[in-house]
C-alpha cells in the first residue's frame, strides 16, 4: 500500500529535552494508524510537525511522496488533545470560519456544513452560540470542525478523552465510516487498549524514540509466546517439564485459572496432558495473545528494566 505520510528520521529538540529522536514511520493510505505511547513520549510533538504547527529540527515529512508544505494544510484535519471553540460564536459561523481557514470556498463550505449537521442530526443548532451547548454537543461540533473540509488525512489526538460513552461510540462509528470512504486516520493515544481493536497499523513511541511499528496482527503475532489460558476444575498438582505455569489462580468450588507456557511441544500435547495425566476437568482452553499494552511494556522493559507502566494507562 502506498503511504500517505512518511516521517524520515525526524528530530525535534526543545530547550531542555529531546522531544523526537530520529523517528521514522509510514502511514499506509486508507488505514487507521495508531500512534501509541505514554504521556510525554513525543506523540504530540510529532503531530504538531505533521500539522505544520511547528517544524522539525532535522528529518523530513512527506505527504503523498511530496515534501510537506503549506499546500497540504487543506488536506489534513486535526483534532487536538486540547480542544476548544470560540464560545461566543454561532455553530454555523464557526464551522464556516474554520472551513474557510482550511481553504474551502464559501459556497462549498456551506454545503459541507449542512451535510455534516444533518448527519449528526444537529441542524437546529446552527444558530446557537457554542457556550449555550452542552459539553457533548460541543464535542460533536468540534469533530465536525475537524473533518468539515474533507481531509484525506485526519489526525485525532486522544480522541476519546472528554467524550461521554454515547458520543465516543458515535465517534468510533464515524471514524470507521471515514476509513470506508478511503480517509486515512492517525490515532494518537496513551490508552493503548482502547484503540487496538480499531487500528490497522500501530507505531509505539517511548521516550522520543519509536520502539516498534507494523500492522497490528503482525505485531501481536510476533509477540506470541506459546502461552495458553486454561480454566477448569480439579487439582493441577505436578507439571510436566515441557510446560511451565506462568500464573496460577485458585477459584471457589475447586475451580482454577492457569496461564501455561509451552516450552516444548504443541497445544494439543498440553491439552492431552491436562485431561490425561494431570486429570483435571477442562472448561476453557485458548491461546493467550499479548495485548498491545503488554507488548509495549515488555518492549520497553527490554531497554529500560526499571520501567513502571504509566498508572494512568493501566487504570484507563
Amino acid at each position: 500500500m502506498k503511504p500517505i505520510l512518511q516521517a524520515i528520521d525526524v528530530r525535534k529538540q526543545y530547550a531542555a529535552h529531546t522531544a523526537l529522536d530520529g523517528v521514522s514511520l509510514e502511514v499506509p493510505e486508507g488505514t487507521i494508524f495508531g500512534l501509541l505511547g505514554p504521556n510525554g513520549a513525543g506523540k504530540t510533538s510529532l503531530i504538531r510537525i505533521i500539522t505544520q504547527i511547528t517544524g522539525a529540527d532535522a528529518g523530513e515529512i512527506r505527504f503523498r511522496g511530496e515534501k510537506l508544505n503549506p499546500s497540504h494544510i487543506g488536506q489534513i484535519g486535526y483534532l487536538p488533545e486540547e480542544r476548544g471553540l470560540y464560545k461566543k460564536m454561532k455553530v454555523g459561523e464557526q464551522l464556516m470560519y474554520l472551513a474557510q481557514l482550511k481553504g474551502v470556498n464559501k459556497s462549498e463550505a456551506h454545503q459541507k456544513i449542512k451535510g455534516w449537521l444533518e448527519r449528526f442530526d444537529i441542524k437546529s443548532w446552527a444558530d446557537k452560540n457554542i457556550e449555550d451547548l452542552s459539553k457533548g454537543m460541543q464535542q460533536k461540533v468540534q469533530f465536525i470542525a475537524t473533518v468539515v473540509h474533507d481531509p484525506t488525512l485526519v489526525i485525532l489526538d486522544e480522541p476519546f478523552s472528554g467524550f461521554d460513552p454515547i458520543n465516543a461510540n458515535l465517534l468510533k462509528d464515524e471514524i470507521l465510516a471515514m476509513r470506508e470512504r478511503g480517509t486515512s486516520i492517525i490515532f494518537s493515544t496513551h490508552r493503548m487498549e482502547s484503540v487496538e481493536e480499531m487500528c490497522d497499523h500501530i507505531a509505539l513511541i517511548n521516550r522520543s524514540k519509536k520502539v516498534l511499528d507494523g500492522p497490528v496482527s503482525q505485531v501481536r503475532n510476533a509477540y506470541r509466546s506459546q502461552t495458553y489460558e486454561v480454566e477448569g476444575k480439579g487439582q493441577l498438582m505436578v507439571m510436566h517439564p515441557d510446560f511451565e505455569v506462568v500464573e496460577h489462580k485458585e477459584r471457589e468450588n475447586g475451580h482454577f485459572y492457569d496461564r501455561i507456557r509451552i516450552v516444548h511441544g504443541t497445544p494439543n500435547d498440553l491439552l492431552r496432558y491436562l485431561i490425561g495425566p494431570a486429570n483435571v476437568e477442562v472448561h476453557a482452553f485458548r491461546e493467550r495473545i499479548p495485548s498491545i499494552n503488554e507488548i509495549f511494556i515488555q518492549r520497553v522493559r527490554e531497554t529500560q528494566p526499571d520501567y513502571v507502566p504509566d498508572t494512568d494507562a493501566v487504570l484507563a
Partner: protein
Amino acid sequence: MSKIWLIAQREYLTRVRKRSFIIMSLIGPLLTVALFAVPVLIAKMSDSGKVVAVADAGGIFADKLPEPKDDISFTRVSPDLTTAKAEFKKSKHDALLYIPKLDLSKPAGFQVFSRKGLGMSLERDINRAVNNAIESQRLQKAGIDRAVLDNMKVDVDLQTLSLSDDGERSSSTGISTVIAYVFGFLIYMFIFIYGVQIMRGVMEEKTNRIVEVVISSVKPFQLMMGKVLGIAGVGFTQLALWVVLSMGISSVMAGSISPDKIAEDRAARTTAVMRPTTSKDEAAKQENAVAKFTQALDSADLNVPLLVGCFLFYFLGGYLFYGALFGAIGSAVDSETDTQQFMMPVTMPLVLTFVVSQAILTTNPNGTVAFWMSIFPLTSPIAMMMRLPFGGVPMWQLGLSMVLLIAGFVGAIWIAGRIYRVGILMYGKKVTYGELSKWLFYKG
C-alpha cells in the same frame, strides 16, 4: 494574505456586533457632547435670577445699590432689621443682607439671612459687593475717585504670533493646547482600549484551546496580524462613529442651547428686576466670547490636513506598535492576573508621555524633552501629536519620527510574532523575561 483577511474579518465582525460596542459607540458621543453641553445647561438652569434684599442700616449703599451681576440683583428693603426680617419671610427674595451701623475702619457685624443654604457663589457675590462698597467709601474718604482708580487698572490681551521662515503666523496657544490634548487623549485611550482587547483576544483563544485548531490552518503570525488588523478596524469604526455622531448630536443641540438664546432668555427673565441694558451688555459679552473663540480657531492657522493626516498615521502606528506588544503579552500568560508584570513596562512609556504632557509638551512643545519623546517610537504617537498643533515642528523631525515609528512597529511585530508562536502553545507555565528572550531565537 487572504487568511489574514479572513481572520481580521472575524475579529472585526464579532466585535462590532457585540452589544458593548454598539453601546460604547452611542455613549461616547453623548459623553463628549455632554462634556461641552452640561456646563452650558447648568448655567442655564441655575440662572434663576436670585434677588438679595438689602437692609442697609449702615448706609454703605446709600447712593447706589450694587450692579446686578451673574444673575444676582439687589433690592432695597427697610433698614430696620426686625421689619426687614418680617418682610423677608413674606417676600420671594432669596437672601437678606443686613448691614449694621459701622465703623469704616473696622467693619463688622454683617449678616445674611436665607431660607435654604446660601450657596457658595451667592455668598461670594454678596461678599464682594459689600467689600466693593466699603472700599469705595474708604477711597472717597481718602479723596480718590473710584473712576480714576478703575482707569488705572489694566487688562491687555496678548496676540501670540509664531515667527518662522514662512513668515509671521498668528497662533493661538489656547486652541493649540486644546487640540493637542484631544489628539493625545484619543490616541492614549484607543491604544489602551484596543491594545487590551488584542491581549484579551489572544488569551481567550489560548484558554479556550481553540488556538491549536486555528494554527493547524494558518501561521501564528497570520493569526496575530489578522487579530491586530481586525481590531484596528474596530477602533477606526468606533472613532468614525464618534466623530459623526458627536457632530450630529452637537448640531442638533446647538439650536437649543446656543449662547445667544440663553442670553435672550436671561434678558427676558431679568428685565423685571433690573435695567435691561445690563443684560444686553452681558449677552453681547458672551457673543463676543464665542466670536473670539471662532476667530482664534481661524487665526490659529492650523494646518488641518497635516494634523488630520498625522493623527491618522500616529493613531494607526501607535496602535500597531502597542497592539503587537499586547498580543505578545497575551500569548505568554495563562490568566489576566499574570499579565501585570509584563503590562507594566509596556504601558509605562504611554502613561508617562501622557502624564508629562502637561508639564513639558504643551508648555514647551519644542524643547529637548519634547523633541526626544516625539522621536522615540514608544512615546512618539502621543508626544508628536501633542507637539504638532503648536506648529514649528521641522519636517525632518516629523519624518524621522514617522520612519522610527514604522521601524518600531515592524520590529515590535517581529518580536511579538516570535513570542506569540511559542507562547500560545505553552500552557500552565509561569513565564519569565529570561524565557521570553529565549523564545525569540527558537527555530520554526
